[in-house]
């Protein structure tokens, strides 16, 4: 049964076929003059080396330490992030949502893979996968369990389905025992998953290890 139950899209023959198709496509589009391979190189390099969840982590750390910025972020995240020089510009439609002891937020895109790339980099495979897309809106506690996260039974859970061009960033709760920490140090506690809502920010002890 196992043979039939698991289809591996990454099987070798499939992969090399895909490699050939993609190479052919790039050749055609280049010869047609639609694309410039050097620009493609630069895009790939940017995604591989420059874009990542550190952008979002800085925004979160700033919000944890600067009440005025936090207020501005929750009011208009695009504008607030725009005021930070050290963070890449974001699109027009960023919305930040705050986790509290009473309420936990989780972000999903059931229809495709909408994700705040400028804040978090490329989405992980699981975010784009059928298990996450199908279950997040129906059984978020079950999904959280897959991530090893258990919330109190009474905590309200709000799932945001990204069905338009609006992009959502979760502002996780600041961990206890970080009262004197600098923004830079706090940013180390802010994981990608904590900004999607499938995780919590790390406790100081977790990064001490």
């Amino acid at each position, binding site marked *: 049964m196992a043979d039939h139950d698991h289809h591996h899209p990454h099987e070798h023959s499939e992969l090399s076929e895909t490699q050939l198709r993609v190479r*052919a496509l790039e050749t055609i589009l280049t*010869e047609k003059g639609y694309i410039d391979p050097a620009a493609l190189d630069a895009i790939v390099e940017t995604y591989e080396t420059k874009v990542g969840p550190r952008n979002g982590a800085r925004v979160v750390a700033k919000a944890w330490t600067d009440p005025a910025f936090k207020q501005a972020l929750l009011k208009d995240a695009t504008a607030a992030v725009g005021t930070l020089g050290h963070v890449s510009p974001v699109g027009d439609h960023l919305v930040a949502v705050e986790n509290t002891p009473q309420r936990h937020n989780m972000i999903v895109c059931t229809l495709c*893979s909408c994700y705040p790339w400028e804040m978090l980099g490329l989405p992980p495979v699981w975010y784009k996968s059928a298990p996450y897309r199908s*279950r997040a*809106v129906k059984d978020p506690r079950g999904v959280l369990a897959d991530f090893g996260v258990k919330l109190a039974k009474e905590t309200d859970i709000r799932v*945001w389905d990204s*069905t338009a061009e609006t992009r959502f960033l979760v502002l996780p709760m600041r961990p206890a025992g970080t009262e004197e920490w600098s923004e830079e140090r706090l940013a180390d506690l802010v994981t990608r998953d904590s900004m999607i809502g499938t995780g919590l920010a790390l406790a100081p002890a977790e990064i001490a290890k």
Partner: protein
Amino acid sequence: MNGVHDMGGMDGFGKVEVEENEPPFHATWEGRVLAMQRAMGYAGAWHIDDSRYAQETLPPQTYLAVSYYQRWELAMEKNLLLRGYVTEAELKAGRALGPAKPLPRKLTKDVVDAGMTRNSFFRQQQGPARFKPGDRVRTRNINPLTHTRLPRYARDKLGTVELIHGCHAYPDSVATDRGDDPQWLYTVVFDGREIWGPDTDPTLTISIDAFEPYLEPA
């Protein structure tokens, strides 16, 4: 369309599997696909909802069987053919065989940063917003054969307008080549029990971002 892409609330896909220390790309070709898509988008070859629609119209068994970037690649081929940028013969030959179709612009190395900045989807409003935060609304029961961003699980459901995001390009029109057709966009929140029935965890609320034509007053 009610495709298999509209999978919110479906059962049977199993656990969420997290890959530790996941690389940005799992193979070189994935990065090339992503970059080609960005370049063609910047060039004005098609809209983001055209890409989505092309993925949605892949055969459902293909949609589920292939990997994420394979889906992108297949969708890109569909749009290239559909819109006359390449021919079947060229795809088969693996090289250009005829002249190009003109495009508004081209993504070159010096403008890559601009090409990677997200477009704005704000559009000129065509009239006043029909709803305001706090309004009770019912989502419409629509089942178009074409692209829509109103998921099946959230149709014909009672919710509350929570946020208003301004006027945006309307995907249902864009993906059917009917232009931007700007529409007001709202975050509408639903009690989980309204969506999944009375046995649902009472702590659950779910929101979608809904364009005004998806909504009627409740």
